[in-house]
């Protein structure tokens, strides 16, 4: 994989260390780095898999802690041993392969297959990085004989701030709904707070007292600790964090201060609140609420019919499918069947059948749930795989050709002697 000069027959054996750039490339393409990275990949995969079962982390946290992080957070260190995250390991591997398998390797017809294979492996890394940073995934729940176009994240909470009509009915100046992702306030627990500002807000929003699995209770509830976030008649009771992250309900305390630093309003906010906090400052009205991260897809899904087949005598579904109509804003409408291995692909989104109203008696299911994914690099691993296969085929065919050629050359003198 790497171009560390090894044996005289190695394609890269003729590479010689010359200037500082070569020295840097020599370090970056080192086999030692590659070996350490492979070992770390093995360790992270093992720990990340085992900890899903043996601790309270669950799938979501293990994914975040081990496979999507640069450094494994302290809470997830196995046996107290610090580890780099998979993102860092893969970033180093990317540089290692790029330096060794693409830049330092001698380019000739002998190595063209190897270079293609290395480039295609870099394609896998790029696809993973694009997916990690840009992929959106959420659930679209549609009731029978109704339609929906709003996808809701199963995992992430946001604090949404929206400008409303003014008290005298004037339309808002800023039509966008601004939102703060939970990665920005996840660490605001206990007394720690963080201020959020925007060029279009005449105020500062302070978020603190974040609780990952929150329940709103009366402020005089005897189960509350002395440090529980409180506001008015209510407080946030921190429940134990569930291993299945979808079951956790986030909550926090928010406070709005005007430009002079005077308190405008404060309150608790959880994802289960029935209405947002509404306030007025700087001559404008706003709402603040915590909600699951939501976005709208450019089409709506109308659920015509949902069908499920169950294993005999059980409530366990064997197969389920939905007849849907996809409606676009230009009036176009098309019929589709979404089943377990037959997703809908439309406008860059892929909608998979993933769940349904499994609490209803068979035949009376009221809604269907689709997982809607937008991933620019969706097909890139496939392209990389094809390129990798092509590179290896070129390399092996070339090697076969050399082998046959060499054998033929060896046999020629023997044949001449025989004559």
């Amino acid at each position: 994989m790497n171009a560390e000069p090894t044996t005289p027959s190695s394609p890269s054996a003729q590479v010689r260390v010359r200037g500082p750039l070569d020295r840097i490339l020599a370090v970056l393409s080192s086999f030692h780095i590659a070996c350490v990275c492979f070992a770390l990949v093995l360790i992270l995969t093992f720990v990340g898999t085992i900890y899903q079962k043996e601790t309270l982390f669950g799938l979501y946290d293990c994914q975040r802690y081990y496979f999507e992080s640069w450094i494994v957070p302290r809470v997830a260190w196995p046996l107290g041993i610090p580890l780099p995250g998979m993102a860092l390991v893969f970033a180093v591997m990317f540089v290692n392969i790029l330096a060794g398998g693409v830049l330092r390797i001698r380019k000739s017809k002998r190595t063209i297959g190897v270079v293609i294979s290395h480039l295609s492996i870099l394609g896998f890394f790029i696809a993973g990085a694009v997916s990690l940073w840009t992929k959106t995934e959420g659930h679209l729940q549609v009731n029978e004989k109704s339609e929906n176009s709003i996808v809701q994240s199963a995992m992430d909470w946001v604090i949404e701030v929206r400008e409303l009509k003014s008290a005298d009915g004037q339309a808002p100046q800023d039509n966008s709904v601004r939102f703060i992702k939970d990665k920005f306030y996840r660490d605001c627990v206990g007394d720690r707070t963080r201020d959020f500002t925007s060029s279009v807000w005449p105020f500062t929003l302070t978020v603190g007292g974040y609780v990952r699995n929150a329940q709103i209770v009366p402020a005089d509830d005897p189960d509350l600790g002395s440090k529980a976030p409180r506001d008015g008649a209510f407080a946030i009771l921190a429940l134990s964090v569930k291993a299945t992250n979808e079951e956790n309900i986030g909550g926090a305390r928010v406070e709005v201060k005007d430009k002079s630093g005077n308190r405008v309003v404060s309150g608790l906010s959880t994802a289960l609140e029935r209405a947002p906090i509404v306030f007025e400052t700087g001559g404008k009205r706003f709402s603040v609420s915590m909600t699951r991260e939501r976005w709208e897809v450019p089409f709506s899904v109308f659920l015509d019919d949902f069908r499920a087949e169950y294993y005999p005598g059980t409530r366990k579904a064997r197969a389920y499918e939905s007849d849907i109509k996809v409606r676009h804003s230009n009036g176009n409408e098309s019929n589709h069947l979404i089943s377990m291995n037959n997703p809908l692909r439309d406008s860059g989104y892929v909608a998979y059948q993933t769940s349904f109203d499994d609490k209803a008696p068979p035949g009376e299911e009221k809604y269907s749930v689709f997982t809607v994914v937008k991933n620019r690099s969706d097909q890139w691993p496939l392209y990389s795989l094809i390129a990798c296969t092509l590179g290896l085929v070129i390399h092996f065919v070339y090697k076969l050709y050399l082998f046959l050629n060499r054998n033929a050359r060896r046999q020629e003198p023997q044949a001449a002697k025989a004559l």
Partner: protein
Amino acid sequence: MPAILRLSLVLTTFFLSACRPPDTVEVVDSREPFRDDREPAEATEYQRFAENTTQTMFQWTKPQDWRGVKASQFREINFAFGPSSEGECYLTVLAGSGSGVAENFNRWRAQFGMEPMKEGEVAALPTETFLGRMVPALDISGSYNPGSMSPGGSVPKAEWRLVGVIMEAPGAVITVKMTGPKALIEAEQENLDAFLASVVPAPNLR
């Protein structure tokens, strides 16, 4: 120091320094409002965290000495008071006719082992102001047996007192019932009056 170790140290320092967001963050994420997004209504604190529909329908002021208690099916706005929370007060909305005023008063009386009221006796009951109307109020004492369905079970409680009002509204019967040891209820009568006077319809959330 080997080059590989130096490289690891530089990378670790770089990534560790970028771990925590700063104390002030400029909000850059935004989305367009959804196609059918309606503006939210202003809501009271109680409406925002309502445990049930009834809590979204009313505004009220909790007397200072009372403690909010998690709502249950027939205790939709629920309080406790007293040194060991032995006093209870709760508001219930019974959809439909809810058996009517007389039937509910008679059910309460039965919990004290009393006979049902005779015709005309309900009309003769004293009244309290509740939700802007004069509504009949019941005040009875004795041995209280709330029944096996109630919290605390069917153990009779001696020297207990009940004060409550029932209002018949279009499509519903609204009851407020306060029970507890006689002396405690005597002391809490003013709080009950204040609570009844504070209950008003809340702005519609829709």
